């Protein structure tokens, strides 16, 4: 029968390993978090040109959309609109709207830029900033890419049957939430 001392030493050993792991991970996070933020911002700028074309530039319209509540439909997922942007073209004319949004379901997190035309505020396309879904590549290849390439995007958006249907439903709801916000903008 192992002694009390043995159990104490075993617990301390495991505790020390766990603490050392936590310190290592914390230190790595400190080192990499700023770089990850820069990468996300770069991806954001690439995303704006991808959705709106070369020369498009986004300027902040509303920095925090934390208080926005979805009212037009009920979503089973956790969706947050983060910020909204006016997108201007090379001639400095307003081109459209971009909403930065994040959604989560049981398969993981997705962050998107959702683009809309200026007037009428029709859905223009999406760009993936980060995709932590389990079926990440399937979601992109079977839902997002065909959606961006479709003529009638509003109809195509509702066709969520693909190898990553749950992720597609999340993406669809994120687009609908962004649309609801954009339709409510009273811009003169």
């Amino acid at each position, binding site marked *: 029968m192992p002694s009390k001392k043995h159990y104490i030493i075993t617990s301390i*050993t495991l505790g020390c*390993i766990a603490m050392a792991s936590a310190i290592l991970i914390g230190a*790595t*996070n400190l080192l990499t978090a700023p770089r990850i933020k820069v990468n996300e911002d770069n991806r954001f700028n690439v995303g704006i040109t991808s959705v709106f074309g070369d020369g498009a530039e986004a300027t902040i319209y509303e920095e925090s959309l934390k208080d926005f509540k979805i009212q037009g439909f009920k979503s089973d997922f956790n969706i947050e609109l983060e910020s909204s942007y006016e997108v201007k073209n090379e001639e400095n004319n307003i081109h459209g709207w971009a909403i930065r949004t994040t959604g989560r379901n049981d398969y993981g997190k997705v962050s998107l830029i959702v683009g809309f035309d200026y007037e009428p505020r029709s859905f223009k396309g999406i760009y993936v900033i980060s995709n932590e879904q389990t079926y990440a590549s399937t979601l992109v290849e079977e839902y997002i890419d065909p959606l961006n390439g479709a003529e009638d995007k509003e109809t195509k958006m509702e066709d969520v049957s693909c190898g990553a249907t749950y992720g597609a439903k999340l993406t669809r709801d994120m687009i609908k939430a962004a649309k609801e916000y954009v339709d409510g903008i009273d811009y003169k």
Partner: protein
Amino acid sequence: MAKEKGYTKKNFLKGIIIENPLLVSILGTCPALATTKTVEAAIGMSILFTIVLVCSSILVSLLRKVISEEIRTPAYIVIIATFVTIVKMMTNAFLPELYSTLGVFISLIVVNCIVLGRAEAYASKNGVFDSFIDALGMGVGYALALILMAFFREIIGAGSLSIGKVFTFIPQYTLQILPKGYAIKLFQDPPGAFIVFAIILAVIAFIKNRKAELKSNRERQARIKQEQEARAAAIKQQEGGNK
């Protein structure tokens, strides 16, 4: 106990050929099937996997006398998970395209049997240097197997080989191998991965069986020759005795 000569070289090479973790032990097949759509993704996965395997083997070996029997498995899992988390954060920061290509399969390195298996089977019983060499050999063996699978899948499935899409610091280049329209997209999907894996295993089994057959033929012929010589010697002796 003194090690035999050439032990380090044998220790390293066994992970590549004799005990290749994917092609001989059939371990770690999930990421092998999922991340071998392109050669670049396979190379990326191999590098991350090897880093985790080597670091965790070294640390497990360093702590082998401190970690008691009761907490062996949870301790190893914590160590492996730590390195996987570090590698994941570093990849997200410095190789974001690789991070988004590999996705959840970076995190799944934690539950890759090869990493925990080598920790239990080797690193927990051997010194740091030997554990390092063993892990490196296993990592290189796994990498070669992944790249072999990805090579065939990308050529047959996409008709081309491309670089620079995942490792964006390399200029993008695509080498068209098959004429456009001749690629079989099935090989980029999971069924194609299974087919390529099965064919590679079948070829390896054929080569192994052939080698074993040739070896047994050689041994049989050597035995027959020996018996004939012994018989001839016995007859000669008998004739000499009769005279």
